[in-house]
């Protein structure tokens, strides 16, 4: 009896904590990421208001992989400055194409006009991917960053981030393609080591993935799994014995 009432009190208290809690921790404001990429993010998700830089060999795939979880969960993705984005690859990796909008930047867009455009995208979209960031003043970048935090969107910068200071940089090491031989086979899948570094990260975080995997999606690549795949299957002869 006494035990039950104390439990009820605990529950009441827990409810009270949630209602009177004065602050929202940054990690509570998260957008989901694909399970295979969770080891890269300290909070196992995309922190709203953060800037993520993708650079190196497979920047485009990595940028798509970063937003797949959130896009599939209902967030809208806007891309600007990426006219060469392969839509088929995007749909294979799991981006919801019905929530994708592309802005082709008109040539000779001034700094103010460009910043207005990015600000409008930040206002309306949870995920904004930019490439080819032009030369802008540090103040403009800071104002956009403040807007990003106020609105709670996530900015993904493909390639050189220019004046933006990224909270998290994701780079690629040891990209290795499988499936292509010397005049035979076809590109089947690629193994990557993703390395995340950033101001607030103590040390680098890394994980290995197949990106793209065999069906164009993302798959976690543990060494064990790789061994299993690469080992040839040896059929043992089975001794038959007479029954019944």
């Amino acid at each position, binding site marked *: 009896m006494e035990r039950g009432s104390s439990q009820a009190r605990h529950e009441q208290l827990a409810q009270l904590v949630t209602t009177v809690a004065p602050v929202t921790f940054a990690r509570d404001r998260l957008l989901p990421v694909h399970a295979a990429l969770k080891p890269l993010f300290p909070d196992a998700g995309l922190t709203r208001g953060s800037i993520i830089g993708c650079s190196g*060999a*497979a*920047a*485009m*795939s990595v940028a*798509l992989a970063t937003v797949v979880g959130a896009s599939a969960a*209902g*967030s*809208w993705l*806007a891309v600007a400055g990426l*006219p*060469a*984005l*392969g*839509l*088929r*690859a995007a*749909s*294979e*990796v799991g981006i919801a*194409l*019905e*929530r*994708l*909008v*592309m*802005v*082709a*930047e*008109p040539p000779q*867009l001034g700094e103010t*006009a460009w910043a*207005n*455009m990015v600000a*409008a*995208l930040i*206002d*309306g*979209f*949870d995920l904004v991917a930019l490439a080819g960031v032009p030369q802008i003043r540090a103040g403009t970048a800071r104002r956009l960053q403040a807007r990003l935090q106020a609105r709670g969107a996530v900015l993904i910068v493909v390639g050189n981030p220019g004046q933006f200071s990224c909270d998290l940089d994701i780079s690629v090491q*040891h*990209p*290795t*393609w499988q499936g*292509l*031989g*010397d*005049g*035979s*086979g*076809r*590109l*089947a*899948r*690629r193994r990557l080591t993703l390395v995340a570094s950033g101001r607030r990260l103590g040390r680098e975080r890394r994980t290995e993935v197949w990106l*793209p*995997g*065999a*069906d*164009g999606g993302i798959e976690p690549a543990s060494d064990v799994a790789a061994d299993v795949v690469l080992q040839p299957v040896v059929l043992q002869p089975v001794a038959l014995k007479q029954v019944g």
Partner: protein
Amino acid sequence: MSARPVAYGDAPPRLAVLWCPDWSVVAAGASPLEPVAVLYANRVVARTPAAATAGVRQGHRRREAQRICPSLRLIDHDPARDGREFEAAVRSVAQMVPRLETTEPGSLTFLARGPSRYFGGESAMAQRVVQLVIDAVPNVVTGIGIADGRFTAGVAARQSAGQHAAAAVPVIIGSGPNDTRAFLDPLSVSTLADIADVSGDLIDLFRRLGVRRLGDLAALPAADVLARFGRAGMFAHRIACGGDDRAADAVAPPPELFVTQAFEDPVHLLDPLVFAAKQLAQQLHDLLVANGRVCTRLSVVAETEHGERSEHLWYRPNGLSVAAIVERVRWQFDGWIQQPGGLSGGIVLIRFTPDEVCSDDGSQLGFWGGRTEADEWAARAVARVAGLVGEQQVFVPAWRGGRQPGDAYAWVCIDTADVTEPTERLAVVEAPWPGHLPAPSPATVMAESVPAEVFDAAGHVVRVNGRGVLSAPPHTVSVRGRPAETIAAWAGPWPIDERWWDSRQHRRMARFQFTTSSGEALLVVVEQQQWWITAVYS
């Protein structure tokens, strides 16, 4: 909303319908002597008389049409062009008749009683209207029908246009239910699908049940039709009987219901006008939705600083959504601003007044929420970005299908697509594309292929002959302006021979996949002995 019901009763109003068949080819400026067809979604939607003589029909597929008439010139469908060009016809008829109403470009409807009294009878009035249109638009074919109700007048107009006479003879059906029934009864039930947008499935069902003529349908008791076919069947039955085709609960909204915007600085350009129209349309939509209503007929008015005025009624039986209003406003203003001679000043006022509203049956949204808040935010942001960089610069994906990595999906401009209603544009048609490369697809597809050079171990350019045989295994690849890289692994050639029936679009090439020593994977094609990098697995 204190709405007063319109006393429609059972007698539909006397309407005149002007109908221009194959409007799209007329709008495209095609000569009637040249075989031309306009295609939408790979089907012919309009063709010139020359093409019609050769046997091209609406609904033919591209290849079928080209087989029937090899010299056929094909034009892509452009609703904006159709709407803009139709403004010329609307303006000329508007000199004579007030309150013109357009359902789609190529079709005009107006109340016949007033003008016919003024111009000496229905026949004389109809001939004058046809003459006005013929003078205003070159090469147009047109027909006019006058009857009780929109459906009957529409059928009459199509009969008038189908006479292939130099000047269309108006088809005038006498007033009263007996004359209307006598005209409609012998017609096939498929007329309902062509003119009144009754679903093809229902027509098919009628046919299989032995109801082949409108007279057969009209002879059935109304209560039984409702019990067996529901609301859609009831609607079909009502118009087959010559009844009113408006929704039973259509009302004229109170006069204070309108939205308007005055510009302090006169506006001379189309884009800012359309941007303002979008906001107004949203306002109007919100006002109506708050009462569970939808606008089926809308009056759009614009005025310039010197008092020039463009007024137009737009009708859509299923209700005008925000996107539909904006599309129609664009047609109207585009044609008005670009008229010969132009406007003398900028536009200072636009006003939308709903002329007829009915309760919003709506379309059923998805079970799990349908539109979310994120969708609303995104739609608003898209409108804002379009205002900043121009509507032609904002794109959404649409399914196309094809063998090349860039063919499967294409970017379509948002002025022709609805951002938050992707079902139609992203409907993947599961057709086999023999020869397309399996997943994974390249993440970067070059907008324009980059020329490259591929050498063998001896330093000679690698060639592929007509049978797809390589002169030597590729060894290095050099992209314009970059040092040559060693090819670590490669596969191919995969030959592809596309659109061999069309000399201009015919492509014959062989595809390869390379990985370079730096770990990059490329999709390379060789076409006419020239190597191109078309995509990067970045």
